[in-house]
């Protein structure tokens, strides 16, 4: 079951967003997140929301996927919303017994939840429209300048790729090991905290051992195919900034400026 869910949940498509260089998307996402933290005004955030909705529309990704991304943080959002609604001083709008809801509280709650939503939505749209391997390519290229200080850029990128490749395999293996140990009568994940931690040993140790063996086998296989680090290595995939990227970045800068303007003026 888990095998069918691709990591990062890439949703194939041919929109402009899909075709954009991953570096463009990474830069945009990070910058956008920074902007989201700068702006406090509800109108600015609404403008940002409109922008994000437009991006979803252009990329052909259904908005329900944006909502789906919220699931993990739903409780946090509800908690902070309630907190902000009821405990902010200001113009009281509603009284429910001892508790009161203020206008300021309402606006603050809206600002906080909207910001969280937009942070998640913008990260999601990046992973929905970019394959994991293209993302790692983009990160590797962006980290390029770090080579000057002898930072192992290529090795990091290779590690990320191999990790991505093996996560589904390791999930399958964990499942197999759990089944085998359960068949022996092992109780995995039950008991008090200490017992539960200990109960995972029969799964973790075999998993670690097999992972080390995998790493060893893989290293030998890579060497057999003449791998020797980044020395003399080329890549089948080349990232090139196209006119599309320039256009997208240009529009993006204008929109961010607009959002910031709204923030300072309203």
């Amino acid at each position, binding site marked *: *079951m888990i095998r*069918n869910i691709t990591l990062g949940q890439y949703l194939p498509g041919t929109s402009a967003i899909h075709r954009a260089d991953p570096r463009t998307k990474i830069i945009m996402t990070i910058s956008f997140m920074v902007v989201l933290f700068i702006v406090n005004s509800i109108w600015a955030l609404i403008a940002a929301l409109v922008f994000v909705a437009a991006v979803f529309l252009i990329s052909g990704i259904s908005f329900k996927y944006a909502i789906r991304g919220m699931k993990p943080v739903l409780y946090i959002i509800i908690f902070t919303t309630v907190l902000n609604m009821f405990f902010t001083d200001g113009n009281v709008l509603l009284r429910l017994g001892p508790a009161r809801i203020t206008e300021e509280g309402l606006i603050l709650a809206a600002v906080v939840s909207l910001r969280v939503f937009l942070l998640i939505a913008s990260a999601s749209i990046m992973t929905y429209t970019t394959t994991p391997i293209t993302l790692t390519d983009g990160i590797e290229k962006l980290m390029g300048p770090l080579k000057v200080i002898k930072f192992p850029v290529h090795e990091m990128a290779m590690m990320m790729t191999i990790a991505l490749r093996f996560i589904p395999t390791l999930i399958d293996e964990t499942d*197999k*090991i759990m*089944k*085998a*140990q*359960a*068949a*022996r*009568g*092992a*109780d995995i994940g039950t008991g008090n905290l200490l017992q539960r931690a200990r109960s995972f*040993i*029969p799964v973790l*140790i*075999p998993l670690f*051992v*097999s992972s080390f063996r995998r790493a060893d086998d893989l290293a030998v296989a890579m060497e057999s195919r003449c791998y020797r680090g980044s020395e003399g290595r080329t890549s089948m995939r080349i990232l090139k900034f196209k006119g599309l990227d320039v256009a997208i970045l240009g529009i993006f800068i204008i929109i961010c400026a607009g959002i910031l303007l709204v923030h300072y003026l309203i």
Partner: protein
Amino acid sequence: MKGTPFEKKALDNVSMELKKGEFAALIGHTGSGKSTLVQHLNGLLKQDEGQLNVAGLETKGRDLKELRKKVGIVFQYPEHQLFEETVYKDIEFGLLKQNIPDEERRKRILDTAAIMEISESMLHKSPYEISGGQKRRAAIAGILVLEPEILVLDEPAAGLDPSGTRELFDIVTSLYREKKITVILVSHSMELVGDYASRIIVMNKGRIEHDGTPSEVFGMGNKLEEIGLGVPQITKLMARLNEYYPEIARDVYTIEDAQRIIGGILRRGR
């Protein structure tokens, strides 16, 4: 996995009965439902519909500990589940959950080790110090020590060379004969199945295609090939010879039987 987009009938209207003390084989192409069926036997998977009664216990809603004492499943490459500091401790692992006095527990472990031809010195070694074949025997011992009434072996000889395979199956057959346990062998090797099983259940796309004696099942040569299975090489030979000499039976599946039949014909010709 009902109700999800990945819903697929892994098992479709499967009905069968297995008698105590049988040595049955479960064969089928990859994805035919063999593993799924087997995992229901000890409650690792629960059926959506229907009933399953194993060794007198209903599997649904049942205390799984009881069930797993009766049904021992040895999965493929069982040596991958070894984790304790010593072979002794690893074999002991499954027994610790049961309330057995120390002395009896120790006796069981030593007896099982003897059956699986694990020496005293090996018991004190770390599972990571011993050879692949030894690891496998240690892993199987870890299941046998629970004294299951039903033993399921999923490709027990996977990765073993011919002599290793023979040694393993010698142990399994003597175990089967002495302790009278019911054995279910899941395997792709038709030669192994032909040599050891007295009953063969054939699965195809989640259904039971056929259930019968080796003669019956291997006699259906072409049908088996259609569903992605084979027959022992000796059976293919006899089927080919049968085209020229109708008196040669098609449902022969051991070298001994083939030798007897062909030997008989050659002697008569002289």
